[in-house]
């Protein structure tokens, strides 16, 4: 077991013929991910990396290949349309890697997704990996190893950092989920914590947050009330200078300034172990195992 993606994942790649799309599709196939189709409007009927059939629309691709998960590598201006198309075609899970999607486009996308059963991960995220089963994203696969630690993170490279430290200590991962760092994202800490709590293969969880927003505080509430598995947390940005935006009106509405210190305090109060720097995370996880 694991969460979200596994060996039964039949992956569709939106933007498969682009430079990034082609490069990472190759990498995903090499890792062992079952890539069944690609979509690039206007290139239907062609073949892409790894003898993958290309379709003009997501609906065509799903009909022909029974794809159940989509990953999106299209440029930012086309990404909102790609997400909506994938959801409209009835896919269970859509992972949007693209960074730089306008925030107001994501407000619309989220409002539409609320009317469907599709789960979105991202945008601006590294994707999801269930080691030795499926890599659906851009993370370097070779640093991961199969095991029982679930990871959920707002960051990309910082997650690799932590995975690398875990693997170096011989500690494997059940699934690592990058939820993305944008203001509006499809899936939050809360959703992923629930999935890990329900996953028999996950024994403990690592949560990697950042300054800004209040999702970590909500996660803390969930950890305090609903989580039976140990959680180790890290918040990046303890030394970051206050934002140089003209105002913190966004933070006010969401409640509080949302500094790293506040988030760390909330998580600690909820019973999570809170690391002071990334290398300490693996130490804490290892201590839970001994």
């Amino acid at each position, binding site marked *: 077991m694991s969460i979200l993606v596994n060996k039964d994942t039949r992956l569709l790649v939106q933007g498969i013929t682009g430079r990034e799309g082609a490069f990472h599709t190759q990498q995903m196939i090499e890792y062992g991910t079952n890539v069944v189709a690609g979509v690039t409007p206007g290139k239907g009927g062609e073949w892409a990396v790894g003898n993958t059939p290309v379709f003009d629309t997501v609906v065509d691709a799903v009909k022909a290949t029974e794809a159940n998960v989509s990953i999106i590598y299209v440029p930012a201006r086309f990404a909102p349309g790609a997400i909506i198309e994938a959801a409209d075609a009835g896919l269970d899970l859509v992972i949007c890697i693209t960074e730089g999607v306008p925030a107001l486009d994501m407000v*619309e996308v989220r409002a539409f997704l609320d009317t469907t059963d599709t789960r979105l991960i991202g945008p601006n995220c590294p994707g999801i990996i269930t080691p030795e089963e499926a890599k659906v994203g851009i993370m*370097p696969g070779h640093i991961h190893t199969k095991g029982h630690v679930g990871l959920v993170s707002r960051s990309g490279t*910082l997650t690799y*950092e932590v995975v690398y430290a875990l693997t170096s200590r011989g500690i494997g991962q059940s699934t690592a989920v990058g939820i993305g760092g944008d203001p509006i994202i499809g899936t939050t800490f809360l959703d992923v914590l629930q999935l890990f709590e329900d996953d028999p293969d996950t024994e403990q969880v690592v949560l990697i947050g950042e300054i800004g*927003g209040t999702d970590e505080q909500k996660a803390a509430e969930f950890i305090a009330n609903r989580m039976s598995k140990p959680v180790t947390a890290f918040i*990046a940005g303890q030394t970051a200078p206050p934002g140089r935006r003209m105002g913190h009106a*966004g933070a006010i509405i969401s409640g509080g300034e949302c500094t790293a210190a506040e988030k760390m305090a909330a998580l600690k109060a909820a019973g999570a172990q809170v690391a002071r720097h990334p290398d300490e995370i693996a130490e804490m996880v290892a201590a839970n195992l001994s």
Partner: protein
Amino acid sequence: MNLHEYQSKRIFAKYGIPIPKGEVAATPAQARDIAVRLGGPVVVKSQVLVGGRGKAGGIKVAQTPDEAEARADEILGMDIKGLTVKKVLVDEAADIRSEIYLGAVLDRARRRVVLMASSEGGVEIEQVAAETPEKIVTVAVHPFLGLRDYQARFLAEGIGLPKEHTRQFIKIAKGLYEAYMGSDASLAEINPLVITGDNQLLAVDGKIALDDSALFRHPDLAEMRDPDSESPSEVVARRHDLNYIQLDGEIGCMVNGAGLAMATMDIVKFYGGDPANFLDIGGGAQADKVATALGIILADEQVKAVLINIFGGITRCDEVAKGVLTAIESLDADVPFVVRLAGTNEKEGREILAEAHFPTATTLAEAAQLAVAAAKGEQA
């Protein structure tokens, strides 16, 4: 990206929000001409992208064109929080009876654009939220429905606006929402929105912050960027798609990914150092981009050591290694470097650096400690 008051108010006007008559001047003589044309008392307002202009003496009333010229002469060239005033807005002085606040912002928790109003106009909304949060009324707008009349009415009633102004307030609130959506803003506020002596609502001051990710579809707004609001290094960084913020420390940091960049700063601090900057080179960074990034770091004279921390996902470590070498060759770098590469093509990357006799680190903790020691002049 932040817009000046005069730019923000011009956008408001396009969406039917009443603003005072006024024009922008770059010289005292121009300010005088504008005051003559407006024909009455005016307000001379410095146009710099910081808050607290009034307190700093950057906003002054003038009764006559001569006075307008004199006030403009005082304000132009003035230094406000490190920024030099190059332009003033000369506005018809409003006859202010009372002041309210009206703003639009993205609420990430509710995933909606939210309109907020407060009876405390002319005060920073952050201050109102901290001291008297009960005076802020908000409504969340569904993106497929837009702002509805009843919601604007709810705001008006919530802040105790006299009923005679409700109709005009609804029009202004809808205009503000349209302006926000139409310009892909992240913040749009009218502060204060005043009730004038002749019972009209008027947007006397305002500001708009834009979502940088959406500028591609607003070339007209992108052109409004004020190059003076950024340091030369920040301008170079932005042109090369690098996310750079200068700080006060002595350890220059170059990292890929915002989260890892912040964590790298955190661990530098943890081991007793102070980061000189935040610099995220983003995904897929090529050799030339890395060289540019290093050039920016080395231009900061406070930097005593450079820590390069790259974890390769999209970015390949061999590319980074080549970039580091290119940068060192092209720049006159006499500070010690600590390089840590891991992830995609890490072996190739380390080999490239090893051939050039560069010190490399395996873990982040090791890299941070080496950099802190190097900055203190200790042998790495």
